[in-house]
Each structure stands twice: as C-alpha cells, then as structure tokens.
C-alpha cells in the first residue's frame, strides 16, 4: 500500500529517534543511491504522506520536521483498510469507547458482577 520511495522514506522516519526535516531525510536517502534524488521530490513524498495522515508535520523555527504516525507498515495498511472500507464490507468488534466515563463504569459493573 506504500510505494517503493514512500517505503524508503518511512523506513528512515521509523529508524530516526526524533522528527526529521526534509534535508535529513534527503541526505539519508541519497547516501545509498547512485542517482541522487531532488529535494523537491522528497518534499512531495513527505507532503503526500502527511495528507494521507501517515506522517505528522510539525513547525520548528523556520521550517518543518516530519515524524511517523504509525509504528509499522502493517499499521498503515490497517488504517488504510478502514479508510477504504468505511463500513462497507467489514464488520468490526472494536468500538471507540473514548472518554465516555459513564459507559466505562457500566461495563466495569458488568465485568465485576457477571
């Protein structure tokens, strides 16, 4: 579900300990490439990944840094699966209980008092 270049970019973001600027991603990509990529190419890939919600962009000083939202390619695939399907053809057990404390306490009572 990720293209080859997108996968390479994600690998770099996953290995990085902190959010990276485009420059750093570009340098790492080009370190092992015979034909170096252009700065704008990498920037385009990163903005596309940001639009898809796979990468998060943060402002620092004069520029932006990027970090991965999900921990693995499988998580991205799961997310895209749900994006694509909506509720069309999957039946899911998991619901979002979120901050509804009342629902949680009702569930807790059911667990404690079967």
């Amino acid at each position, binding site marked *: *579900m990720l293209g080859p270049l997108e996968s390479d970019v994600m690998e770099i973001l996953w290995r990085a300990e902190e959010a990276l600027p485009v420059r750093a991603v570009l340098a790492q990509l080009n370190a092992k490439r015979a034909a170096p990529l252009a700065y704008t190419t990498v920037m385009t890939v990163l903005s596309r990944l940001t639009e898809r*919600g796979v990468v998060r962009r943060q402002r620092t000083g004069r520029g932006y840094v990027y970090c991965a*939202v*999900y*921990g*693995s390619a*499988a*998580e991205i*695939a*799961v*997310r895209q*699966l*749900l*994006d*694509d*399907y*909506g*509720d*069309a*053809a*999957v*039946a*899911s*057990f*998991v*619901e*979002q*209980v*979120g901050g*509804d404390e009342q*629902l*949680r306490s*009702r*569930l*807790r009572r*059911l*667990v404690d008092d*079967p």
Partner: protein
Amino acid sequence: MSRDWPLFALVTAAVASYPALVLSGCVLTLLSGKAAARELWLDGHPGALLAPVLAGVSAIAVVNAARVLARGLWHTHRFHRWIAGLRTPAPSTGLARPGALEGVQVIPAREPLAVTVGLWRPYVVVSSGLVAELSEQELRAVLAHEQAHVRRRDPLRLLLGRTLAAHLWFLPVAADLRGRARRGYELAADRHAAKRCGRAAVAGALLRVAALPPASPAFAAHFAGPELLDARVSQLESGRPPRPAAISRRRAALTVAGGLVFALVVAAAWTFMLLTCPCVMPLQVA
C-alpha cells in the same frame, strides 16, 4: 430474513423502483421517435414533462449503486491480496490453548482490531495488539462475536445494504434502514458471544479495548459512534436488544414526500404511455 427486516425493506424498495427506470426509458424513446408523443410534450402533458426527471433520478440511482458496489468489491479484492501477501508469522500469543486462533489471521499491528472481511467466504482478522491486550476468555468472546458475523455473512449484507441505500438516494429513510441493519448485526453477534463466553467476557473485551491508548482521530471515524456502543452495553445489561431510536419526524416526512412525488411522476409517465405507446394502447381500448 425476518430478523433482518431493514435489509429486506431496502431490497423491496429498490426492486420496486426498477420498473420506473424502464418506464422513463420508454417515455424518452417515444418522445424522440413519435410525432404524437412530441405533440403531447408541446401541449405540456405532465407525463412528458416529468419523464426526464424520472430518468434523471433513476440514472443517478443506478450510477450511485454501481459505484458503491464496485468500490466494495474492489477493496475486498485488494484486502484479500494484501492478506495473502502478508508472510509474517503469527506472533506467539501465550494462550493456554492456541486453538482459539485457528483459522484467524493475526496481523502485526498495535492498533486494536478485530474485523470480519470477505463477502462469500468471510474470515476473521485480528491485530497482535488486541491479542496481547485481552485475557483468553475475552479473546474467545471477541472471536465468537466475529464468528457470528462469518456465519451470517454480515460483510456481504453490509455491502448490499450500502449499495441499496445508495440506489435509494431520494428516500432519506434508506440511510436509517442501513444503520438499523448494521446495529442489528452487531447486537446479534454480541448475543452470540455472550451466550458462548458469558457477558462478563464481552464487557471485559469492550472495556480493555477502550482502555488502550486512543487511536488516531482518523481511526476513530470508522466506528459507529456512541449510540451503537450504548445499545450494545444496554443489551449486555438486560439480555435483550434495546429499541432503536425512532426515525425523526422530518426524515419520515421527507421520505413520505419523496415516495409520493416518485409515485406521482411514475403515474404521469404511465398515463403518457397509455396515450402514445403503440404497445400499450390496445390495453386501453380493451
């Protein structure tokens, strides 16, 4: 089918709307080819004037439905291919009896996920994050819930409901019916899981999933929202499915209005056919 009346209603309404599609096609053909028909058009016969509207409504319905159906089929196909290409071994789950996960596809992801996918031969997919988080009994409850979806082929029903609701775009109540159908499937699957594994296990699984770190907002958008969960909890408490919220008056009124307008346009087009179509006229004479 008796338990799935919302889907049945959608099927009936969609099938009932098909003759209108044929009728509007006939009227448009007559208008383009027959002088008598064009005269009536110039006289302002409502059937002639409204037929293009009917044709438009029907065309949008067919295109909508085809688009939704094609998307559903394509995404299912892509998902099957993705699963088939996934060569990661199932992570060790530490279950006393790992047989619980037999036939279940475990994907390596932290997000809690348990879904039934596939139209004709559905199967269950769970994430390793979910397996790690639940107790054995809770996991069995989740799998029993998904097994119920598998047995009833709920993904197929969901896609059918979505397609038919897209077809019936001019009836606002169609979306409600689709929501009701989905609610019914989830509640039925929960009843099955509670019967097999006890309601405490189902409640515990729901609670554990809720205690997991909040998934991203994009992720949260795919769950049915608080109403369905509230209904599921109420059913666990009382042992019987709670009544769904009544359809709003506005929606009901709009639907009745939409249905009436649709019927009137069909009637007008039909009288037009009686007046002009050579194949229907003998009926009128007799």
